[in-house]
């Protein structure tokens, strides 16, 4: 195969994944009750296009399966069969198999006949008869010779004379209000900006300006008319006036084209040919730019600016095509190149902070040119970084679609009826995070179906609908992405969980535990809930593995369970694995970084603020409540606990579940963006430490995981109460 063909083949598989995604969307819409032809058409087209491409590359198994699928879809499209639940379930299964087939073909393999046979049989049964191939014999069609054959080429000259379409022209009327001048804006700059877009004819209407003795300087008297010829588009023109939005009267109207438009095909509304051809109805807008309104008459003085967008703008967006929203243009880029860019930006950030630091040390004054330039540099670096990170971000949709399949498969394995509802599919998160989330999430979804939801009988007994619900949602919450898996099952059986943990020696017998402590036992290594190991979740992976996978992504997982009503697992993840906003603090002789996202405020303690509670727990009042005090230096074993906490600087750490703690540090040095350098590969997981970074002076600093630190700290102080004489030295990290 030629290189060009190889490339097309590779892009075919990428395109297949996109088609399969829209297929899933279509099926989901059908399951949610959509019956319109366009939805069915979307599914049909996806299968059909995959078949077409597969044929070109000789992927016979894929063609054969897609053909069977397509045949049934076609029957549905023609209205000869209806999409009942059974058929939809079959379609979902076909969609899954189609994905498997595409991936197999990509890897130059095929699926076994056993995998396909049952589904193919069902497909065969779904339609009464293999429909008679109604294809035309090629002999029946006589090709029609082209009437323009060679003369047509002579015409070319004429046609070419038409030239490119004329540049769009706009009539802009700009009438500043008095406030525009007083707020420090200068119309001249705006006019110059417009002139940069292309040919502009600018006239100022001065007719309203009175003689000097009647002149009122608080009144707006000037209006500019601009005729602009430019192809930057109306949005760009509007953007020029963004800063004076509300401070002026503005109208932007496209002007009629003056160029020749002879070639424009006139498209009358088409009658849909005939019903049996099943052509989708066409609501095609004309292709040539809509006839714009004539420019606003010059004479009128106070013509209110049109509402946000003039009519022509709506035609603009409607033009791009009937019922499908035109996809944004995209470029496919090798992931390696992006990662290289991410690394380089990381280096740039470090470099920039080193530079800032050395400039600061050189004793230049803050308003020197270098310092100002450096500020700008810092801002630019940050913008570049954000933009680069955005390239790596992907919507979680593909991940969620995989989970839909897991739900279907595991529900049928355990004989439950389950419906998955997803929300926030467009939430974007780093590609690596998405990839590494697949396994833990799969496990959680399986758990929810297998353990979370009760059996159908139990559900009916409890007065719940027979169909169980699993919800999968993603959302942005304070700079992190939160993914929740919830079910409407029976909730965690706490007495059972506790007794299992006691049996396994994970906790001492008869220990008093809060509900949430019991729930968290699920995450303990060695805890396996399944009393009878079922086919699904008993795959040797416990929730502890899930938890580790999540924390290796810099994430946290929490459980909320409501007996009888269900359980919700929340995973909170950083947006990116490459950088974070951190507070640089000093503890003893060490410099550490605390992620800003964990800090809700910083305070300095006054005399008598800290109070002792129990043998070695201190608390400090923060507004209306008491918050436990953790001395970071002691906790990490850097320094001995101090006598008094008067004047101590504390970072108030907030956990997702609302728990707070006051973390004592010696000094806050800086607040900055740091590049995360993983420690996992070299050191494994170190409790309380998330990663490391390189500071501006070249020094290496650990990035703390304060939540992990606090969880461990408070856990230890409860279970192995250290003697008060020598308080926390026993808690030094290994």
């Amino acid at each position, binding site marked *: 195969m030629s290189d*060009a063909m190889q*490339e*097309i083949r590779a*892009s*075919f598989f990428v*395109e297949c994944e996109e*088609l399969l995604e829209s297929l899933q969307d279509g099926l989901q819409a059908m399951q949610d009750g959509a019956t319109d032809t366009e939805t069915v*058409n*979307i599914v049909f*087209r996806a299968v*059909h*296009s995959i078949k*077409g*491409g597969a*044929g*070109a590359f*000789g992927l016979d198994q894929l063609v054969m399966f897609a053909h069977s699928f397509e045949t049934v879809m076609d029957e549905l499209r023609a209205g000869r069969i209806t999409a009942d639940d059974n058929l939809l379930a079959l379609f979902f299964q076909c969609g899954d198999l189609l994905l498997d087939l595409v991936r197999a073909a990509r890897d130059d393999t095929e699926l076994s006949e056993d995998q396909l046979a049952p589904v193919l049989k069902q497909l065969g049964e779904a339609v009464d008869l293999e429909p008679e191939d*109604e*294809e*035309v014999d*090629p002999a*029946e*069609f006589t*090709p*029609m*010779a*082209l*009437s*323009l*054959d060679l003369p*047509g*080429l002579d015409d*070319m000259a004429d*046609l070419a004379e*038409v030239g*490119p*379409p004329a540049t769009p022209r706009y009539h802009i009327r700009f009438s500043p209000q008095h406030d525009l001048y007083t707020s420090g804006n200068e119309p001249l700059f705006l006019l110059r900006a417009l002139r940069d877009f292309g040919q502009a004819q600018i006239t100022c209407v001065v007719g309203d300006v009175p003689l000097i003795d009647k002149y009122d300087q608080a009144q707006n008297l000037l209006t500019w008319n601009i005729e602009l010829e430019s192809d930057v588009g109306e949005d760009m023109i509007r953007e020029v006036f963004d800063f004076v939005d509300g401070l002026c009267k503005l109208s932007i109207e496209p002007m009629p084209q003056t160029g020749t438009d*002879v*070639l*424009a*095909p*006139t*498209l009358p509304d*088409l009658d849909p*040919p*005939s019903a*049996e*051809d099943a*052509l*989708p109805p*066409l609501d*095609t807008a004309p*292709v*040539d730019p809509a006839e714009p309104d004539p420019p606003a008459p010059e004479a009128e003085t106070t013509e209110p600016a049109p509402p946000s967008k003039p009519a022509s703008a709506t035609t603009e967006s409607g*033009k791009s*095509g*009937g*019922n*499908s929203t*035109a996809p944004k243009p995209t470029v496919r880029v090798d992931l390696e190149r992006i990662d290289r860019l991410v690394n380089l930006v990381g280096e740039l950030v470090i470099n920039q902070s080193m530079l800032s630091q050395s400039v600061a040390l050189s004793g230049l004054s803050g308003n020197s040119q270098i310092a100002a330039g450096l500020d700008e540099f810092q801002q630019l670096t940050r913008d570049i970084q954000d933009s680069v990170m955005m390239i790596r971000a992907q919507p979680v949709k593909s991940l969620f679609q995989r989970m839909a399949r897991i739900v279907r498969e595991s529900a049928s394995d355990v004989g439950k009826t389950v419906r998955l509802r997803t929300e926030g599919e467009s939430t974007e998160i780093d590609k690596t995070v998405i990839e590494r989330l697949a396994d833990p999430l799969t496990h959680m979804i399986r758990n929810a179906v297998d353990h979370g939801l009760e059996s159908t009988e139990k559900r009916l007994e409890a007065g719940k609908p027979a169909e169980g619900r699993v919800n999968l949602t993603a959302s942005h919450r304070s700079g992190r992405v939160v993914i929740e898996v919830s079910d409407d099952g029976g909730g965690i059986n706490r007495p059972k969980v506790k007794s299992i943990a006691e049996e396994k020696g994970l906790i001492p017998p008869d220990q008093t535990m809060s509900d949430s402590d019991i729930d968290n036992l699920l995450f303990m290594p060695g805890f396996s809930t399944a009393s009878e190991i079922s086919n699904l979740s008993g795959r040797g992976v416990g929730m502890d593995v899930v938890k580790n996978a999540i924390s290796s992504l810099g994430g946290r997982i929490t459980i909320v369970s409501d007996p009888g009503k269900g359980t919700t697992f929340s995973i909170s993840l950083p947006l990116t694995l490459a950088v974070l906003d951190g507070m640089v603090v000093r503890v003893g002789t060490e410099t550490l970084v605390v992620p800003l996202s964990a800090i809700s405020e910083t305070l300095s303690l006054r005399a008598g603020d800290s109070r002792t509670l129990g043998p070695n727990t201190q608390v400090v009042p923060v507004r209306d409540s008491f918050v436990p005090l953790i001395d970071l230096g002691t906790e990490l074993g850097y320094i001995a606990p101090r006598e008094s906490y008067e004047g101590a600087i504390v970072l108030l750490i907030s956990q997702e579940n609302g728990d707070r703690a006051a973390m004592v540090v010696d000094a806050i040095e800086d607040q900055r963006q740091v590049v995360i350098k993983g420690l996992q590969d070299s050191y494994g997981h170190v409790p309380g430490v998330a990663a490391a970074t390189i500071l501006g002076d070249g020094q290496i600093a650990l990035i703390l995981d304060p939540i992990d630190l606090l969880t461990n700290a408070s856990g230890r102080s409860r279970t192995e109460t250290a003697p008060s004489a020598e308080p926390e030295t026993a808690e030094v990290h290994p």
Partner: protein
Amino acid sequence: MALRDQLRILVVDDMSTSRGLITQALETIGIRNITTASDGQGALKSIKASPVHIVVSDYNMPGMDGLALLHALRQGPKTKGVGFLLITGRADRAIIEHGRKLGMNNYLKKPFEAADLKSAIEAMVGRL
């Protein structure tokens, strides 16, 4: 100058794989002037900006399908004479008949080789 050097062809398909395949096949048979569009509206726009002799279009496309594009082309005073080759996965009688009525010059069933495309075009314009 051979005909194939002068012929201008517009390829219309919503799937980039198919656009690539058709373009590749056209290049193989020596066509030099090839433009592409990903939907009917884009095709009409493109043909307005740079006219062509032949439109090679897929049948199954969202929004405006291949035959609707053909219909639109036949309505335009300057585009009504353009050659039209329909690429289709299935040569259903209904589709082909409808195409014939609208003035389709020829059709080609998928999958096809460059040689098939060549004969389909030659049936319209003579030896390339």
